[in-house]
């Protein structure tokens, strides 16, 4: 047994030692697996980053109410008396100032994207102090809160990253109205950072919205318990609303980028097949190239198995080297890459690619699989070939 291990080790070392002689073929193998791993990681990192942005926003403690049938806030309309009715409902948490209910309204405004210099949609959300207080993870990074009743606004970190002209102290013009940026807020990297926030009353009056809103956010008395609120809605015909937890809402909004992630999986699997064919070819050629060497080893008394293992090990070393190279490239190019896209509410969602350690693990596994498959069949052939035939062919 000990001698078998020793045999495998020495064959492997010999194979690796002779790699230099087959430089171009080896490089092709490394290249092929690097590409597959890099593509896969790029797509996964994108999906991961988007997911983090979406799911981080959702709390099961908060319910979001919109007009029934509207898939997102932008399509919903809620009137003041409906807000009042909901505020009285059972199941809504209260503090000393009364029920924790935040009616909100947003309009879509244009911002200039840094990357392309073109205009893109950003939501300008109006909310009151309760609404601000209900977002537990929100904190000011710089500057101060807007003063209610004035044309002041605060901007999310994501907006600041992706768009021009929203630095503190800057004046921003939307139509006839001039706004002043007085603060920058962070909500821990989630979707709210893609928004501008200002006083709800001011937005209602500037945009002729009367006393209307688009959504109601409210804190639930019991975590995740929507029942009392849904009963109120059922009982009261004036309330044509739908209630869901914020978590559910953002999960459904995040679906569309999931498709991109799936698309990424399909593309990288198909590409992997192509690259695998290239890698297999390389390994076959590499084995054919050494047929005489392998035959000599076997004539010397090395077992078939050790010849087999040596070839597989060679392929796996090359594939893993490629995997590392691919991961490194993906990490350098994509990790932390800021980007934005049109989200479910017709506005820009700013997010970053995120290369988490488990992605590297997935990349490494993929590289190992490529190495194993592309080594297995040529190794099988090398080990099975009768020694005499190998000698005859090699000359």
């Amino acid at each position, binding site marked *: 047994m000990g001698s078998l291990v020793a045999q495998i080790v020495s064959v492997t070392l010999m194979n690796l030692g002779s790699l230099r002689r087959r430089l171009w*073929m080896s490089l*092709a193998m490394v*290249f*092929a697996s690097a590409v597959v791993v890099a593509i896969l990681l790029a797509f996964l990192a994108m999906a991961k980053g988007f997911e983090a942005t979406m799911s981080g926003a959702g709390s099961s403690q908060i319910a979001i109410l919109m007009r029934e049938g509207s898939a997102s806030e932008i399509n919903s309309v809620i009137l003041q008396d409906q807000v009042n009715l909901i505020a009285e409902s059972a199941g809504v948490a209260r503090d000393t100032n009364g029920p924790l209910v935040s009616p909100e309204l947003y*309009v*879509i405004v244009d911002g200039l994207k840094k990357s392309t210099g*073109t205009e893109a949609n950003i939501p300008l959300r109006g909310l009151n102090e309760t609404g601000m207080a209900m977002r537990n993870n929100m904190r000011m990074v710089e500057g101060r809160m807007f003063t209610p009743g004035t044309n002041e606004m605060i901007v999310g970190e994501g907006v600041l990253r992706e768009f021009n002209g929203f630095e503190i102290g800057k004046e921003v013009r939307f139509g006839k109205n001039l706004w002043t940026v007085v603060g920058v807020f962070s909500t821990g990297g989630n979707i709210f950072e893609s928004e501008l926030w200002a006083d709800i009353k001011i937005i209602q009056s500037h945009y002729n919205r009367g006393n209307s809103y688009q959504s109601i956010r409210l804190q639930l008395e019991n975590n995740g318990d929507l029942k009392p609120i849904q009963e109120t809605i059922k009982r009261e015909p004036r309330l044509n609303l739908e209630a869901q937890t914020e978590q559910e809402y953002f999960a459904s909004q995040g679906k569309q980028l999931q498709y991109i992630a799936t698309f990424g999986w399909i*593309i990288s699997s198909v590409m992997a097949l192509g690259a695998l*064919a290239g890698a297999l070819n390389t390994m076959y*050629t590499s084995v054919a190239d050494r047929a005489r060497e392998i035959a000599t080893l076997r004539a010397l008394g090395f077992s078939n198995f050790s010849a087999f293992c040596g070839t597989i090990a060679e392929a796996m070393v090359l594939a893993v080297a490629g995997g590392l190279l691919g991961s490194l490239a993906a990490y350098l190019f994509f990790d932390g890459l800021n980007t934005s896209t049109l989200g479910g509410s017709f506005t820009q969602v700013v997010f970053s690619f995120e290369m988490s350690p488990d992605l590297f693990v997935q990349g490494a596994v993929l590289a190992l699989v490529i190495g194993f498959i592309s080594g297995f069949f040529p190794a099988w052939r090398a080990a099975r070939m009768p020694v005499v035939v190998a000698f005859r062919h090699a000359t």
Partner: protein
Amino acid sequence: MSDFYLVFKNMTRKPLRLFLTCFAIFIAFLIFGAVTSLKSALNSSVELSADNRLVVFNRINFTQSLPIAYVQKVATVEGVKHVTHLNWFGGYFQEPSRQVVSMAVDPESYLKVYEEIVIPEEQKQAWFNNRQGALVGEKLAQIYGWKVGDRIPLSSNIFSHKDGGYTWEFVISGIFKGDTEQYDTRQLLFHYKYFMETQTFGGDWIGWMALTTDDPAINENVAKTIDDNFANSQSETDTSTEKAFNKAFIEQIGNIGLIIFSVVFTAFFTILVVVGNTMALAIRERTGEIAVLKTLGFSSTRIFRMVLSESLLIAFVGGLSGLAAAWLLVEGVKTFLARFLPNLILDGDIALQAILFMLLLGLITGLMPAFQALRLNIVTAFNRQQ
């Protein structure tokens, strides 16, 4: 013995290697064809927009509305041929997930501005005369199996109906086609008046205007005049060509598209490099044989031609089959994706581009070994074999 026979024999001497090489090329071009079609489908709205058509939106953002009085003012601007106005309805059929691109329009002026719309004369008149009438695009009608004369309910996720609920009833007056196959006919158009009279809120507001100018050359002037007219009013306008607007809209989807395409194209080229390397090696291995052929009196150019045609042949066998598979794939998912990407077509341009890449692959992988074969000195070649 023809040269082709020799080329063929050379190519197929290691069937497994040939298969793997062709397969890798096949995959590379399959992906190239599919992804390029996807890309051009995304961009098609830009290419199809008419040169002399302008759109007028609220300056704040295109989702903000404009007062209807603006239409008359725009109509009087010099250089404006026809002007019409549109309201986004946010329609869906039965389920909120089954969205229908639907707009409330002024029928007569709409058909003047959007000349691409082809519709039988009697259907057109029927639509003009029926306030509840709707004009449906061919593809949309196909998706839901609608026919002329059908009564269909359409709900809005924005507006509510005066009589309660969010559902409007329409009668299909006509089914229109586009003047080119790529024109997006997944739309439903209905009367602005009917919409105004039956909605609970919204008043006399329009979503945006579309207009045609007498000549694309005066576009810029017309746009400037319009925007100047409404400067410092409650609703300032932003006028741009339809092309510029569509382009900006696509850019909103953003870098994501760009990132995907660059990743895929990098992969495409890397696969070609890897495969090319193997192909070149396969020929280099045969140095000895080439020397024999030379000894037998084959001229250098003849060998050069044979080596080159071998690599070209491999590139085209793999590439063309990949392209064909991409075409099948695109045709297969076309109907399935019609709702999101109406113009998914693998057209001649894409095929031509792919063929160019195949040619390039064959030439690059073949030229180097071919040149070596051309210059090969028989004596050294035999020596090297020892």
